[in-house]
């Protein structure tokens, strides 16, 4: 199996406090990894380092993918007056690795419209992003994350703002992305008991890795501990 992400001896500290300590793991192509752990365990910090949002760390992070999609917990921009339409926000996902002046082509527009249809938000395409509900905004951000057909999709607890109906659709959608399109998924989640999620591996982080491997083995270890 080919690896798509290798993290080796990763250490991230804020001052003298290590938020991530001696973290090493390899993610293979088509893996669907649920990253779990208590609050303050360093999950978001780890993901931010992988995404290149944190550059001050020791160790190495190697990504063997042309494109990475990212879905944050919620939109970073809470300005209800922000004058961007849904279509404009999704188009941002196509900007990576484009040559200047990065103009959108007719096929880009088609790609954007297809993703909007796939996620059931085509009818919202001309609405201002700030006018939408939390759940609708999450769908827009998911569309932005996958419009570029990423090889890795990284999600940071995106389900908290979703309504139960779309949560079900959301997991089905991720499963299809992983199983049919072969997208590798790293998913920070608190929703560990969810039966709909098609993940195959678990990374249990509490500043350092407490478990990384197949979900079946994690269950065995958990049951063993309980016994």
């Amino acid at each position, binding site marked *: 199996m080919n690896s798509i992400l290798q993290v080796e001896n990763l250490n991230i500290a804020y001052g003298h406090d290590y938020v991530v300590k001696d973290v090493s793991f390899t993610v293979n192509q088509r893996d669907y990894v649920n990253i779990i752990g208590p609050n303050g365990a360093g999950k978001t910090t780890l993901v931010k380092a992988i995404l290149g949002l944190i550059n001050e760390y020791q160790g190495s992070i190697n990504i063997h993918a042309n494109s990475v999609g990212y879905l944050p917990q919620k939109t*970073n921009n809470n300005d209800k007056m922000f004058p961007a*339409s849904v279509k404009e926000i999704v188009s941002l996902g196509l900007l990576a690795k484009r040559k200047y002046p990065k103009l959108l082509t007719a096929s880009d527009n088609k790609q954007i419209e297809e993703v909007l249809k796939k996620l059931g938000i085509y009818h919202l395409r001309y609405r201002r992003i700030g006018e939408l509900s939390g759940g609708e905004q999450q769908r827009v951000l998911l569309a932005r994350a996958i419009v570029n057909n990423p090889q890795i999709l990284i999600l940071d607890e995106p389900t908290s703002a979703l309504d139960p109906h779309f949560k079900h659709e959301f997991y089905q959608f991720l499963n299809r992305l992983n199983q049919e399109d072969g997208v590798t998924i790293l998913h920070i989640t608190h929703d560990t008991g969810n039966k709909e999620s098609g993940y195959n591996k678990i990374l249990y982080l509490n500043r350092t890795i407490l478990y990384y491997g197949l979900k079946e083995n994690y269950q065995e270890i958990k049951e063993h501990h309980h016994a």
Partner: protein
Amino acid sequence: MREMWETLIEALSSSFIHKAIFVGILVAISSSLLGIFLVLKKYSFIGDGLAHVSFGTIALALVLGITPIYVSVPLVILASFLILKLNEKADVHGDAAIGLVSSFSVALGYIIASSTSGFTVNLSNYLFGDILLVSNLDIYLSLILSVIVVLTVLYFYNDFFALTYDEDFAQVLGLKTKRLNYLLSILTSLTVVLGIRVVGTMLISSLIIFPTVIALQIARSFKKTIIYSLIVSILSIILGILLAIILNTPPGATIVVINGIIFIFVYLLKVLRYKW
């Protein structure tokens, strides 16, 4: 009334008014193009701060006997970098950093102005500007600077859009966000220096803020906000200059007041549309 019309028609046939309108439109285009990024990034007052800095640089230029724009462009760009650095490295909040750099520059400019007699009248021209007195040099410099601003914004449009909406995501996309912020600062500095001739250091930030805020009341997309703000900006400059001639009022202040009236009108229109 007839006298007013005659004054206007007579003024319209003279070259100084053509020059004023031409330079005014150039400034309107540059300031409204940048306005959307600065207002939405909550950096509205960087225009005001840099205008205060330019007051200091103009005082220095007048003492040295150099055309102010040659001194103002590099020093205002440097000041904008200093504001960003204070924000990044010294953990000074953006608005506080603007306040520090701008008040220091005004203080320095005032000391220079008061220690040398003879040019205080000149300096006051720059406080409120006088677009009706633009020289040929002003026209050439305005043309060059505004072409630089417009082409750069068009070239980096999508990058600036990503940076304004979500800086983290822009970084994930591989955009050099720090460099883009510095580029935005350079363009703002050029626009501020350019706009001082039109409305002066006291009112330049209004040209950056008003058209965008007016456009935000009605536009439903980023592109439309830019288009509406361009229209408002150009319209207010032309109307402002013409009204200033008819009413014999200061042109810079008239332009700002017209922006204010358009804002009130558009805002009321929006409120009424929601109510009915």
